[in-house]
């Protein structure tokens, strides 16, 4: 089983590009996919220490702009991504210590940290920053996250349960938010049998204001969750066939997450020791899919 470093590097590169997109002063390109703030924070907390400039830049950004991060959603997203929960606690404590918001995940802890302030104000009209822009306009709550989903797929109607799943919010919060948005004329609600389906308003005014949206929509929470799981996977000691078996079992559990993340899946038709080769090849494909 190889390529652990390659996958880790791909993840760090992706994290760096997303922080660049948010305005952190790092050398490198910006991301053109939609930045999920909570997924980015959670993944950076887990792996950012491997790249100190990224970790420090992330802390600087959170100290300055952390109010744009949904503390409750951060906890939910971090739980889905997995990994060592103490990493996020430490990160949140450092953000609080630098004068940033006190997210619930910090559990009241603060750790001293001096922000270097190497963060510039980006233009929130960039497609990748749509989530931050909508939160700036509509508040850090389910309303903005629902509009992100609808605005990036304007011709699609969603059941409330799907919106809850996609936004990582509760169905109750989504229901209340949809009611407000419908009253404001920003969304339309159709009834199909017993089910409500929500779509973006067909009025062009809001769509013009949103402007260009990132395409395609990437579920970074789901993708980071797969990467974290793979980086944390240890096939153990044993012959190649034993390690291939443990890898096969691991992949079987991960398949739903791989599908949700719209990532390539390993060749599960490869049997016995051959799956070890297929697994290694897949790690390379995974890195290529994550790398910017």
């Amino acid at each position, binding site marked *: 089983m190889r390529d652990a470093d390659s996958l880790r590097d791909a993840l760090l590169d992706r994290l760096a590009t997303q922080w660049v997109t948010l305005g952190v002063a790092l050398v490198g390109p910006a991301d053109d996919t939609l930045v999920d703030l909570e997924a980015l924070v959670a993944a950076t907390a887990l792996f950012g220490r491997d790249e100190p400039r990224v970790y420090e830049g992330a802390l600087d950004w959170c100290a300055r702009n952390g109010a744009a991060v949904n503390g409750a959603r951060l906890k939910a997203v971090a739980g889905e991504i997995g990994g060592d929960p103490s990493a996020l606690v430490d990160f949140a404590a450092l953000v609080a210590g630098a004068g940033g918001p006190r997210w619930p995940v910090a559990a009241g802890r603060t750790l001293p940290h001096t922000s270097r302030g190497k963060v510039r104000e980006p233009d929130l009209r960039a497609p990748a920053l749509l989530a931050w822009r909508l939160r700036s306009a509509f508040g850090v709550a389910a309303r903005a996250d629902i509009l992100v989903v609808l605005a990036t797929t304007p011709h699609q109607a969603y059941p409330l349960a799907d919106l809850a799943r996609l936004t990582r919010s509760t169905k109750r919060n989504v229901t209340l938010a949809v009611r407000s948005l419908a009253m404001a004329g920003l969304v339309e609600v159709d009834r199909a049998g017993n089910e409500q389906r929500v779509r973006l308003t067909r009025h062009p005014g809001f769509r013009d204001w949103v402007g260009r949206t990132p395409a395609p929509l990437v579920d970074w929470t789901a993708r980071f969750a797969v990467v974290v799981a793979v980086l944390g996977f240890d096939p153990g*000691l044993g*012959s190649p*066939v*034993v390690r291939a078996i443990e890898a096969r079992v691991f992949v079987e559990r991960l398949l739903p997450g791989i599908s949700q993340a719209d990532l390539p899946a390993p060749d599960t038709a490869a049997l016995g020791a051959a799956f070890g080769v297929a697994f290694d090849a897949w790690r390379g494909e995974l890195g290529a899919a994550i790398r910017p």
Partner: protein
Amino acid sequence: MTHPLARGGLDDVLAALGGVLEARGLHYELVLVGGASLLLRGVILRPTRGVDVLGARDASGGVAPLEELPEPLARAVADVGLAFGLAPDWLNLGPANLLDLGLPPGFEGRLEARRTGGLVAWVAGRFDLACFKLYAAADRWPARDRHLDDLAALAPTPDELHAAARWTRTHDPSPAFAENLHAVLGALGVEDPDARRR
């Protein structure tokens, strides 16, 4: 789609199971009967659907019954099955009534060990396999299926068949079974000595 097990494949999956058990810090000693035993002894070449476990070999050398496979073993079996395209229960408990009604005398002494990693597979002896196949063939007579073919492949001597026949009657003393047994022995070209005494 699941795959049947031919000899090479059977060796591979048992070795894989032994390796997985060892890697997980587990150790099991299982007594095998059925088609897998015939394959491992080189008696037949036809693939088998799975591996039948009679029971666990206990510390005294006897065969202890198993109500079900221990969970860690069942999980390892399922994991190996997943990796090799086999059914999750490719190794499972076989006919428990063999233990209930008694094994052929000296069964334990004729077991042969195949050790791999955390697994010791005790393969039933040739004579014992002949006993089981004779019973199955007579039980299914007049159907001439794989049990009769396997019995022929074991090539038991007439004396071995006579001894096997006496054992099968301890499992089923009914006249109908005796008639079938007589027919099976006849199909193998062996006279049933006990039929003359009836």
